């Protein structure tokens, strides 16, 4: 089919954005080729949560399911930050050389992308967090507002079957969540008592996990292992929601293990085709009447830059990189909690989520029950992290304390800065000879101040819940371990300082669209981005169809 036009739209990347874009296009009658560099995952065989060694496995790696990036030198850590330094009583400090550890960009390649691995929080962005420049003088404004997003949020929530509470404060809704909220786990209720004592809000998190059967998918059985991959099918990962719905239209063709290595320019400010690498090392040319890039905020700018700077007329491709500003704190409660029972991140406090909610620093955050995400699903992890030493005392303490852990997590806004970016590694190449992405990340003082607040409040919440013996804390102050990344193909109205317009279309290339978190002008105050990515992608799809 080399050179032939066989699809109306080629979508690159089958994660949250690509899947939603494909669905939005297919349901309106367009044909879509959905490409992904990674493989298909089979929920029945790839997520062996019935096996005795489930806790030693984590999310599976399959051929081509992990990409390769390099990192620029880590930021020199400024001063002593005892509340922010990563480490545990059992393992000691994570960083001892005074330099931020650039460890990992957590990204799954495959049909479903990182949603296969995600926790499944389904958040709308705070309306004020879309107006950071005009309201607060930082970052950039989104070229659309919450009201324009609302019906797309509804569509995404309906397809996924999001379960959520009646109200989420500033994130107004024209219609309730499709499904009732999940009941809180025992550990979440323990933390809820602490939140109440502090006067903090604490409510059921909105989750892409079914509280009741929905569209042929069963309800969640609260196994707590969302991040290992969901074998049940209740988690709203993109493969069982948007992709399944797109395929059901009969107009979506899926091609796993098909990395796009380059975009070919055409005439009249249009892109002509993508060059796709085959397993045997050969290259296939696929014409693209419309091209939607949805590879995430690292790989989308890499692909554009590696295509001779396509779409980079503003010089902003790869700039404004924002990563996950986070902290998790673990403590021991006098009473057993066994917090991995139930949905991870089942409860949340939005009290400090508005951009002006944290005293003295712009940019919000949220707090949540982090037991499920803290990798303490297994006994071995607990024994080595929570209890220092070895020998009989250690063994007896493990016996006594197993199940007593409580975790609070906080995720906050990271503001863009010129030292944080994605560019092309000057020497490293992939197997097709293309340069791979290099990640540079640097936290500004405002980000560190926000982290300090997040840490203090996490400690307060744990203490108020009765868990005073802190045994570990991990934060992005000294540890780059990003899941949510944003901003590297910023959307905006001005072609001089943004890459795409408010619909995700390149300011210059009329059939080139971006539908992932790289278009976010600001990161939001700690909201999980998948739902917003999907809502934006649905909006982009609608625009493509309308022409």
């Amino acid at each position: 089919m080399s050179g032939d036009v066989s699809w109306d739209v080629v979508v690159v990347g089958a994660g949250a954005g690509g899947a939603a874009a494909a669905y939005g296009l297919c349901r309106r009658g367009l044909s879509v080729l959905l490409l992904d560099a990674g493989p298909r995952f089979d929920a029945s065989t790839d997520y062996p949560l019935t096996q005795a060694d489930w806790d030693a496995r984590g999310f599976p790696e399959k051929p081509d399911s992990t990409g390769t990036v390099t990192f620029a030198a880590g930021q020199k850590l400024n001063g002593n930050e005892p509340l922010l330094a990563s480490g545990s009583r059992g393992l000691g400090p994570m960083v001892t050389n005074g330099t931020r550890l650039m460890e990992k960009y957590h990204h799954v390649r495959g049909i479903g992308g990182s949603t296969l691995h995600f926790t499944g929080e389904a958040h709308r962005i705070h309306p004020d967090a879309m107006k950071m420049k005009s309201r607060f003088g930082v970052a950039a404004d989104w070229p659309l507002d919450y009201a324009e997003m609302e019906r797309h949020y509804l569509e995404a929530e309906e397809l996924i079957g999001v379960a959520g509470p009646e109200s989420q404060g500033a994130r107004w809704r024209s219609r309730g969540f499709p499904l009732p909220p999940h009941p809180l786990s025992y550990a979440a209720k323990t933390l809820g008592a602490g939140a109440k004592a502090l006067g903090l809000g604490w409510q059921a998190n909105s989750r892409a996990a079914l509280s009741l059967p929905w569209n042929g998918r069963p309800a969640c059985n609260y196994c707590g292992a969302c991040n290992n991959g969901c074998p049940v099918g209740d988690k709203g990962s993109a493969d069982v929601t948007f992709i399944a719905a797109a395929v059901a239209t009969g107009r979506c063709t899926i091609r796993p293990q098909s990395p796009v290595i380059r975009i070919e320019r055409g005439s009249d400010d249009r892109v002509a085709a993508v060059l796709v690498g085959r397993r045997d090392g050969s290259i296939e040319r696929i014409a693209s009447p419309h091209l939607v890039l949805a590879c995430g905020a690292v790989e989308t700018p890499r692909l554009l830059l590696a295509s001779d700077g396509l779409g980079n007329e503003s010089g902003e491709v790869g700039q404004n990189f924002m990563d996950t500003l986070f902290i998790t704190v673990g403590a021991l409660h006098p009473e057993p909690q066994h917090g991995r029972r139930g949905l991870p991140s089942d409860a949340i406090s939005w009290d400090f989520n508005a951009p002006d909610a944290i005293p003295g620093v712009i940019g919000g955050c949220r707090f949540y029950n982090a037991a499920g995400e803290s990798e303490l699903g297994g006994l071995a992890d607990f024994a080595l992290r929570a209890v220092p030493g070895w020998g009989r005392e250690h063994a007896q303490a493990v016996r006594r304390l197993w199940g007593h852990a409580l975790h609070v997590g906080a995720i906050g806004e990271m503001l863009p800065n010129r030292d944080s970016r994605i560019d092309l590694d000057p020497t490293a190449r992939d197997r097709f000879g293309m340069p791979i992405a290099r990640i540079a990340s640097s936290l500004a003082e405002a980000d560190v101040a926000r982290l300090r607040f997040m840490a203090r409040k996490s400690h307060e919440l744990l203490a108020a819940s009765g868990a005073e013996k802190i045994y570990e804390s991990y934060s992005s102050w000294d540890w780059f371990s990003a899941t949510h990344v944003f901003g590297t193909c910023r959307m905006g109205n001005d072609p001089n300082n943004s890459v795409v317009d408010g619909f995700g279309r390149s300011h210059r290339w009329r059939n080139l669209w971006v539908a992932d978190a790289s278009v976010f002008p600001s990161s939001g105050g700690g909201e999980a981005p998948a739902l917003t990515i999907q809502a934006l992608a649905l909006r982009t799809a609608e625009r493509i169809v309308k022409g």
Partner: protein
Amino acid sequence: MNRRNLVLLLGALSVGGAAVLWRTLASLWRPGSAERTARTMAAVADVMFPGVDGLPAASTLGLHKDLIASPDLQALITKGVAWLDKHAALHGAADFVALDEAGRLAAIDAAFASKDDGTQPFVFALRQQLGTAYYSEPAIKSKFAYTGPPQPDGFPDFQERPT
């Protein structure tokens, strides 16, 4: 056989105590390097991860053998075992294995605190690898609540105080 061992052997023979004789002969037997490493590592494993409350100790589960077989750990183990034996000798024992439990524990603590090349990483690596293996063993996990596979049943009691 050095003078001290000879005196011990003669003494044992003179009293005719079979147990004493056996212990003395055993102390004189010098195993080959691989066997010596295996004995030391078994002892280290059991000091670090002993069986309490009726649980089996690490060497009973054969976990030290996996460490010895790991190519990545060879250099650390060689260095670490030599350090522990040397430490034991400085404290009047023939080697690490000849120490009692308190002495072995003190030796491992001292290795972890030592600035000598490779000793702290040796203890750290053993803690990580042995500890992970030990607390991942079905025989151990089964003695702790809520350690079974999360599927197919999930946790129906997730809202309740754990049992």
